[in-house]
């Protein structure tokens, strides 16, 4: 029974990482002129959002199963407070940090219309910290570190995100590469600041 928790925790952690990778790749690609899989843009946007929510579900399952796991000996505050754990505190702390970042990114995204585009975007860029932190946590902590399959999964995740970044950096990435930069008349700038 206790082993079942352990397997479940590892499995849900890997699923959360894979989903997070999909979310990050879709986020990076969102501005593209050609959308992922030829889907309409709004569908890609929904996929990004819903995959993120699903990743949160698996992350919660991952953490909750470890809370009840007799080996991990996770205390409640280990879930939110990084780098103070009993067991491989640094690697486990990366997981905690990733969890905190993820919660911040998702909560601000769900409240996007409430908090405004600037604040939302500032928090959303933490995704570029959240994903590598989650990846390192997966590689370094737990009983699967160094196993071939976890390395394989992790390297595929890295390849997917690097491919998305490379794609975004190509000159014709956006819908209208030749469109002039959006200029806002100085008269309207104050409006833009508060948005």
């Amino acid at each position: 029974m206790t082993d079942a928790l352990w397997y479940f925790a590892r499995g849900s952690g890997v699923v959360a990482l894979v989903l997070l990778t999909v979310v990050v790749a879709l986020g990076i690609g969102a501005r593209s002129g050609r959308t992922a899989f030829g889907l309409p843009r709004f569908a890609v946007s929904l996929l990004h959002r819903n995959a993120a929510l699903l990743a949160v579900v698996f992350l919660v399952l991952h953490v909750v199963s470890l809370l009840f796991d007799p080996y991990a000996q996770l205390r409640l505050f280990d879930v939110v407070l990084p780098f103070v754990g009993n067991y491989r505190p640094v690697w486990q702390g990366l997981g905690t940090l990733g969890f905190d970042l993820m919660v911040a990114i998702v909560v601000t995204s769900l409240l996007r219309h409430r908090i405004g585009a600037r604040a939302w975007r500032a928090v959303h860029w933490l995704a570029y910290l959240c994903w590598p932190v989650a990846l390192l946590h997966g590689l370094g902590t737990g009983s699967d570190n160094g196993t071939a399959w976890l390395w394989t999964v992790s390297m595929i995740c890295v390849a997917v995100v690097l491919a998305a970044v490379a794609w975004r950096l190509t000159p014709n990435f956006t819908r209208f590469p030749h469109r002039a930069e959006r200029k806002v008349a100085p008269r309207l700038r104050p409006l833009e600041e508060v948005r």
Partner: protein
Amino acid sequence: MTRLHIDWTACDGRGLCAELLPELLAEDDWGYPMARDGSPSPTVPPALEPNAQRAVDRCPALALHLTREAERPSAPTR
């Protein structure tokens, strides 16, 4: 009466709204939305309100808002 308000200082011409509301919006040559009826804030018929709400929710630049006016134009609700 519901209107779709487009904030032009925020809109980035990303085209999600025209996909969701083809009945109401077309795109200009640079991907910015244009109301088919030529008005700056097109009226949203009740049948299109759910899609209009989706467009508001999905707009990556938060440039869209729905405004609801009372039937008598002199008494706006907000």
